[in-house]
């Protein structure tokens, strides 16, 4: 699991009326270009471009940053591992292996070549979708991942379409009843829910729904010949677990984001214009609240990608997460590296989406001076 639902990015103290892209996060982009500074120097093409099309420039910058990050991560996943102590060949064969056997296996796995060469060929393969062969099963990693990635996305997708409307709805409910009983109840329950480990929720649901009531299936196995409805019923419990895991955090962040907008000076202005509640929310609060809320959702979806790891193990669901955990226990490095890179790619992509949505929603950037 990842720190997402426990600490989470703080959205609460944005300046009223100004939606900052989360520049403190991994983006590292300037919150907004400084026209005074860039305009005076004028110089290069890029500077002029930033000045004239700050929105496009920022998005391009953010995109470039993500690509760079992904590249650096690939280097870390591959090269960093090389730097760590421990020899794959010994691990692979066990401590009692003869030096000759170790030597053979090194050659077999291609470990005798310099690591830069192996990295380049690995990266070249990864870009074209070829992750080599598994040490354990000798099967193509890409083939295995192809099946399992679909399963994982299927799970995450349904978790998302249940949790997102639910979280936004509950968040709005909490705002509506701010500091009154419903809000306090939601607050206490969500605080507790944040503290529950995924596997605890998972087994609790299994014990109750699958074993005692017998209304759900366990383990949640899916195979190719299953019909769509059969699949749905198989993933009901894992989806419910994932929803419970992300819901509380998404809801708390949504609440904070909406409250931030509702307490802004321009909502007060709208109130002092004598506008009705509906008009204030629809016309004045919503356009400014949509962006942070979408940002919240994107961040939590990024977490969801990671949450599937534990949930898949609990429910014995044939997805990427289980594949990776199995590979880690038998130290099947090509699989571990491939899965690690794909998970990281999803995570980086969703974080980028969150940032770009925040940039898009900022009227200061959409309508430059």
């Amino acid at each position: 699991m990842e720190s997402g639902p426990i600490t989470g990015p703080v959205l609460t103290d944005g300046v009223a009326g100004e939606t900052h892209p989360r520049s403190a996060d991994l983006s590292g982009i300037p919150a907004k270009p400084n026209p005074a500074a860039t305009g005076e120097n004028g110089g290069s093409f890029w500077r002029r471009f930033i000045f004239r099309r700050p929105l496009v420039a920022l998005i391009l910058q953010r995109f470039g940053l993500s690509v760079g990050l992904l590249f650096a991560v690939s280097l870390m996943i591959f090269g960093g591992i090389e730097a760590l102590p421990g020899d794959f060949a010994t691990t692979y064969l066990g401590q009692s292996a003869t030096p000759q056997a170790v030597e053979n296996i090194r050659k077999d796995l291609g470990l005798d070549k310099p690591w830069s060469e192996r990295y380049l060929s690995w990266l070249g393969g990864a870009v074209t979708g070829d992750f080599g062969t598994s040490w354990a099963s000798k099967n193509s990693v890409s083939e295995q991942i192809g099946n399992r990635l679909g399963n994982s996305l299927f799970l995450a997708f349904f978790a998302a379409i249940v949790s997102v409307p639910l979280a936004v709805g509950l968040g709005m409910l909490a705002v509506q009843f701010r500091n009154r009983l419903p809000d306090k109840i939601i607050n206490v329950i969500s605080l507790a829910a944040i503290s529950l480990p995924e596997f605890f929720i998972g087994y609790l649901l299994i014990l109750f729904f699958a074993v005692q009531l017998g209304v759900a299936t366990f383990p949640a196995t899916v195979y190719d010949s299953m019909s769509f409805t059969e699949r749905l019923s198989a993933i009901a419990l894992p989806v419910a677990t994932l929803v419970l895991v992300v819901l509380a955090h998404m809801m708390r962040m949504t609440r904070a984001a909406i409250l931030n907008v509702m307490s802004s000076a321009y909502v007060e202005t709208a109130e002092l214009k004598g506008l009705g509640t509906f008009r204030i929310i629809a016309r004045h609060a919503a356009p400014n609240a949509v962006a942070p809320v979408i940002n919240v959702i994107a961040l939590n979806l990024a977490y969801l990608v990671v949450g599937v790891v534990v949930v898949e193990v609990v429910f014995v669901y044939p997805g990427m997460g289980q594949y990776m955990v199995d590979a880690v226990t038998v130290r099947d490095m090509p699989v571990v590296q491939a899965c690690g890179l794909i998970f990281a790619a999803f995570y980086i992509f969703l974080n980028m989406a969150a940032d770009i949505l925040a940039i898009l929603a900022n009227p200061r950037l959409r309508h430059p001076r």
Partner: protein
Amino acid sequence: MPDLLSVKNLKIEATSYPPGEPPKVVTLVEGVSFNVEKGKVLGLIGESGAGKSTIGLSALAYGRGGVRITGGEVLLNGRDILKLDRSGINSVRGCHVCYVAQSAAAAFNPAHKLGDQVIEASLRHGIMSKEDAKKRALYLFRVLGLPNPESFGERYPHQVSGGQLQRAMTAMALCPNPELIVFDEPTTALDVTTQIDVLAAIKHAIEETHTAALYITHDLAVVAQISDDIMVLRQGKTVEYGTTKQVIEAPKEDYTRALVSVRQAKRDEAPDQSGTLLKIERVHAGYSNGFKVLHDVSMHLPKGQTLAIVGESGSGKSTLARVITGLLPPSEGRIVFDGKELPKALKGRSNEELRRIQMIYQMADTAMNPRQTVRDIVGRPLSFYFGMHGAKKTERVGELLDQIEMGSRFLDRYPAELSGGQKQRVAIARALAARPELILCDEPTSALDPLVAEGILNLLMKLQEETAVSYVFITHDIAIVRAIADSVAVMHRGRLVRFGPKSKVLSPPFDDYTDLLLKSVPEMEIGWLERVLKTRRMESAGN
């Protein structure tokens, strides 16, 4: 004829939630009554915490945060709006009574065009058709002197300057043709030269449209220009209530008298300005991103005297202070102190050099470590520069506290337990503890209420007489310059405009900028605005 607005015996309370304590009910306003006739302007004046904004919002039956109106009546055309239901209140707000906030930048919705926001209330209340509302908005943009009034409404709030936004907010309030507008410190956040334009625009617009107004401000000189009546408030209660003429020219209460006379102090400059303690020679400075702030600035200050540096925001006056302290090394030029050139950067200076120049900040709140007591704050320079400790140090801290007229009983207080003025005094004591020869004062009084500010200025003058310390006093306020300076430097956009003895700088012939600056400072005199506007071209194209 009944009054347009009649407030009777108003009582306003708020619930505060101090951390870790049970909630407390605080009375913000009590027993306040006033009337506003059609087309007249009532000025509400008071220091921070006087409850003036809270009273202003009560005219819209609105309480900010946990604020509640718990007693009295607010009669609008004879009808108590406090007794109205939600839709009744909504039909008053934005229709009969409109509001202009202090910070227009925050009060405009960043997601919508200015024009749409200006005409929104008129349309939603069905006061006029969209065509008519647009025409009226255009008319108001013209009256308020906004640039390119035809296309102004197409712009977004972040695309126009602060002064323009404040005028747009006034247009927004005037658009539905209300009977009353509440102006809540509409010019406080603006520069002096911008403030006068906005003030003139507001005055012109409400005269033109015959709208009544509540004008809330802390600046008596400002309200004297625009209001027919004035109510002076203090700590939620009425101090004095009368016509503008009576309050300004013949105040009855001591408090009002003090407010009226607060800006009148003048000091004669030192006759001999020949010696030199500090010399700034042809300084250029800028930030690492290439943005140049100071261009070729030179000035000097004799020992034991005060040099006032005047300018608006962006003039580079605070940057100059950073250059003198070494926080921002100049790119060219040099700083000579007591005949010796100072190392450019802070790191290169010895503790002795640092000791001789001390600094006082604008916000005493952030200038003192909130986790240290007064004893620690004032005592640190003593142990750091002079190695004092124990009883000797405590004794010296006590002496310093006596010097700033506070006394030893404040030794173990934390900054949070002090008032704004007391904090600034402690900051002065901390500077004095180093026995400096020069104190840089960066707007030390501009965050304070006028009477408290005057106390601080008097203290600084007294200390100068006692210890012969020199001051570089950075300010935007000409009245302060008159009160304390020996010599004056006027800065504008990073350049020195004028420098010399006070008597010369502040008397004609003026350059354009100094002229503009001097004529922009409101004076405690009815009719000053009209008089000055005749001699000064309104800069409608500017802010």
